């Protein structure tokens, strides 16, 4: 697997050192002594009130003001040895973009981020900064409170977009080579942008009718408004990228068919679209959803506006979501917004092991979500209409750490109890989408159903076919999908130029 906490490459170190030694940076550093900077307190992210926001789908976080962003940027010590960059899976030049904010050059700052991250408005909102850049930030070591790197990233990209002055970079002369990007999630969009800029003719093929992958059908608008993604897609269209929606590669046409149509290189970014179920009795009762189905009904099909939109979704009074990741948090907060009297997380480990972003757990708590830790369902009961009405659970305790490093939950005998429920969302993870593997002869598939790649190049076993993101990692993160995509784009460009 791609290592998150790698040492910085010599090139990146050199680039950071050069930027650090620029005259304006030296002056800016001197203008406020480090001691003063360390005394400043972290700027809070303005948020909508919990009991207002938990009834609608508008965004929770409102974004920093200009003044707050500049103040927050001042807290950054502009370290000679910036640890934050090591925590960033794509190696954004964090001190440079933050110091540009301090200087008031917001557009420049946005451009700086875009050198390495093509979707900063998305990442600023959904990356788990507290375990990446902000965890390693030197200011955290010194004072306990890191620079709000994520909030700053979000600020500059929103500033650029809302100002309507999104910089469209120069596009190299057309190379005449054709690239097929399969899947329009963050990985696919990143590859599309990178290769279009290099002058290749890029077409993105997407199975659904809206581009964005998990960013549109999975992550709700209260966390990531659709406008942001639409702006990204518009930007790619300006770069000449073509989008072909309602096109399932493998079914509508295979990779081989596309080769015959003149495509020279391929990127498989089809994501982790296979929902896992627990396989316990009663799991197919009415009112039990996979998180994918539940969120797709609401986010993509707009079931929250039923009957104005035709797709329905069950409105539970006692909604339970199984799992402890981001997907579970999104599902449970969605259930709450759709009017559940009680929306509860049931998670088999303890709070500490929950993989969700800290901010989402915090927001969920503020909004009145209940948590049942160390609890696992073992079967469901139905009413006379085959609708789920109760769930038998068992209490768990934590044993030795398992392969993921988290302590393994073990059932406590005799601790079974019944919980009343009328809506269950199973959110215990997704597996790689198996479709492409099944219909593409010669494409090597790993034991988890993942597409196998050479981690240095993201090349698959087929010539000219690359892959990345959740289809190779299983459910991972937006930024890891984008990191893979950048490596793949670099290698695909080499392949196309050879």
């Amino acid at each position, binding site marked *: 697997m791609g290592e998150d906490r790698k040492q910085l490459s010599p090139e990146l170190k050199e680039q950071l050192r050069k930027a650090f030694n620029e005259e304006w940076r030296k002056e800016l550093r001197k203008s406020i002594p480090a001691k003063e900077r360390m005394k400043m307190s972290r700027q809070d992210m303005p948020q909508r009130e919990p009991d207002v926001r938990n009834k609608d789908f508008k965004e929770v976080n409102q974004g920093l003001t200009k003044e707050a962003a500049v103040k927050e940027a001042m807290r950054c010590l502009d370290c000679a040895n910036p640890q934050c960059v090591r925590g960033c899976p794509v190696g954004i030049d964090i001190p440079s973009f933050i110091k540009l904010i301090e200087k008031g050059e917001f557009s420049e700052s946005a451009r700086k981020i875009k050198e390495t991250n093509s979707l900063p408005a998305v990442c600023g909102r959904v990356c788990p900064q507290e375990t990446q850049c902000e965890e390693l930030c030197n200011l955290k070591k010194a004072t306990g409170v890191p620079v709000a790197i994520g909030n700053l990233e979000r600020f500059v990209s929103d500033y650029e977009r809302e100002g309507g002055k999104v910089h469209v970079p120069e596009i190299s002369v057309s190379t005449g080579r054709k690239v097929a990007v399969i899947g329009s999630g963050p990985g696919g969009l990143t590859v599309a942008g990178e290769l279009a800029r290099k002058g290749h003719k890029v077409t993105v093929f997407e199975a659904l009718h809206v581009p964005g992958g998990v960013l549109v059908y999975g992550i709700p608008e209260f966390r990531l408004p659709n406008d942001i993604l639409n702006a990204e897609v518009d930007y790619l269209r300006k770069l000449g990228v073509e989008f072909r929606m*309602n096109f399932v590669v493998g079914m*509508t046409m295979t990779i081989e068919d596309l080769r015959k149509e003149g495509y020279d290189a391929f990127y498989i970014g089809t994501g982790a*679209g296979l929902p896992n179920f627990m*396989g316990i009795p009663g799991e197919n009762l009415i009112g039990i959803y996979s998180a994918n189905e539940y969120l797709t009904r609401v986010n993509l099909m707009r079931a929250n506006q039923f009957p104005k939109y*035709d797709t329905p979704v069950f409105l539970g009074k006692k909604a339970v979501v199984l799992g402890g990741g981001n997907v579970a948090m999104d599902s449970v907060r969605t259930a709450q917004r759709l009017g559940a009297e009680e929306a509860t997380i049931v998670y088999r480990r303890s709070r500490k092991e929950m993989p969700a972003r800290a901010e989402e757990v915090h927001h969920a708590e503020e909004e009145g979500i209940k948590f049942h830790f160390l609890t696992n369902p073992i079967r469901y009961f139905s009413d006379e209409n*085959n609708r789920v009405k109760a769930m038998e659970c068992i209490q768990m305790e934590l044993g030795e750490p398992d392969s993921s490093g988290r302590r393994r939950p073990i059932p406590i005998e005799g601790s079974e109890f019944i919980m009343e429920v009328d809506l269950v969302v199973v959110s215990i993870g997704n597996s790689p989408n198996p479709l492409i593997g099944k219909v593409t002869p010669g494409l090597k598939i790993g034991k988890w159903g993942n597409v196998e790649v050479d981690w240095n190049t993201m090349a698959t076993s087929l010539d000219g076919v690359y892959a990345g993101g959740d289809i190779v990692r299983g459910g991972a993160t937006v930024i890891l999908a984008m990191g893979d995509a950048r490596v793949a784009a670099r290698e695909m460009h080499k392949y196309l130029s050879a």
Partner: protein
Amino acid sequence: MAKIIDRKRLVPNIHMIEISAPDIVKRCKPGQFVILMPDEKGERIPLSLADWDEKRGSITCVFMVVGTSTQKLSRLRSGDDIPVCVGPLGKPAEISKFGTVLCAAGCYGIGAIYPIARALKQAGNTVMTLVDAKANYLIYWEDRFKEISDKYFVSSRDGFFDCKDYIPKVLKDVLKDNKIDRVISIGCTYLMYTCSEATRPLNIDTYVHLNPIMVDGTGMCGACRLKVGDSTQFACVDGPEFDGHLVDWNELFYRRKSYFNDEIRSLCYWEREEKPRKMTKEKR
């Protein structure tokens, strides 16, 4: 976007729709389906492929008008656009030389089974067709079936034909009089269920094409899951063809009715709010 080439009523409440789909037509096989969205606010609904024409670059589906989505589809005219037509989806029906195959179908399934029957004939099978309809005026594509069938039967309840029975009764008679190696059944869930039950004691391989609720149609959501034998399968990628003797019919019946009340609400809303507006526009 996909263009509607033609839409017409075949018999009361059953329509056919021909859609321009130059990519789909090149790869589709008997037994596969497409997912359509009638308009921007519509649901994604699966429809079986009933025919296709490579020269015209078009596919044809047959549907029964039941809920809001099919109401909307039934009002489309040639030249209209629909936002989603994606496919072909699902595994193709198994086609090989089985010997004698009986194709038993009703309502929209008469259309859906047609390409399968045709392919089975081409593969060298003796093909018998059994069509179920409440009354004689609900039967369509008779000429098409007669052309490809070695024998053609009807079960009906109106006495126009020489028969007053529901399909399993006629099915049993046909099975008694003929040596049948395989039965394929497509239609409403009840029809497929009764056909499967009729052949179970005789141990004749029986395959059904199931129609659970779907959303994406690519294996992403699990809406279409159903129990077949000991395992849960996703109809959109593992099916839609399944062994009728292994399907958990009870589960399929209730899962299909999951949104019964919502469907009525949706239809009432559409009748009240959308239909009048649409009709004034159509008049203009």
